[in-house]
C-alpha cells in the first residue's frame, strides 16, 4: 500500500480510535486485496511503510463483499460498482478478505 495512504490510516486510527475506523478497499485482485487488508490489520507485509510492525487490527472489507454491499443503497451500488463484478474475480477477493479478517481483525 502507498506509504502516504498507510500514514493516513495510522493517523485516523489514532485520532478516532481503531474500533471506530473501517477501511474499504477497491483492489483489482484477491491477492492485492489480501495484501492491503493485511497492511491495515497485521501491519505492512512489505516492510516499507509507516504500518510496518503496527498491528492496527482495523475492520476491513472490499467494496464488493456481500456484508457491506447489503448496507449500500442498491441503486447507487448498481450505478457505481456493479459492472465491475463482471470484470473482477469476486469469489477470490471474498476468500482472501475473509481469511485476513479472521486472522487479524480485532473489532469484529
Amino acid at each position, binding site marked *: 500500500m502507498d506509504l502516504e495512504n498507510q500514514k493516513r*490510516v495510522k493517523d485516523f486510527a489514532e485520532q478516532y480510535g481503531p474500533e471506530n475506523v*473501517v477501511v474499504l478497499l*477497491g*483492489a483489482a485482485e484477491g491477492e*492485492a486485496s489480501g495484501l*492491503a487488508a493485511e497492511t491495515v490489520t497485521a501491519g505492512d507485509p512489505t516492510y516499507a511503510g509507516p504500518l510496518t510492525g503496527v498491528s492496527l487490527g482495523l475492520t476491513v472489507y472490499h467494496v464488493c463483499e456481500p456484508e457491506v454491499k447489503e448496507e*449500500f*443503497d442498491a441503486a447507487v451500488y448498481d450505478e457505481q460498482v456493479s459492472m465491475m463484478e463482471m470484470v473482477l474475480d469476486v469469489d477470490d477477493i471474498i476468500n482472501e478478505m475473509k481469511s485476513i479478517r479472521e486472522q487479524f481483525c480485532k473489532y469484529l
Partner: protein
Amino acid sequence: MSILAGKKVVIIGDRDGIPGLAIEACAKTAGAEVVFSSTECFV
C-alpha cells in the same frame, strides 16, 4: 449490527479495480462518515 453506519471510513480504491470516488458514493449511502478517500495506481 451494521458495519458502516456511524463509522469513520477510510477508502483505498484502485484505478484498475474500483476507484475511491465510486466507493465513497456507496459508503455515504450506508451512513458512514468518509474521512479519507484515495485511489492507488500500479501501472
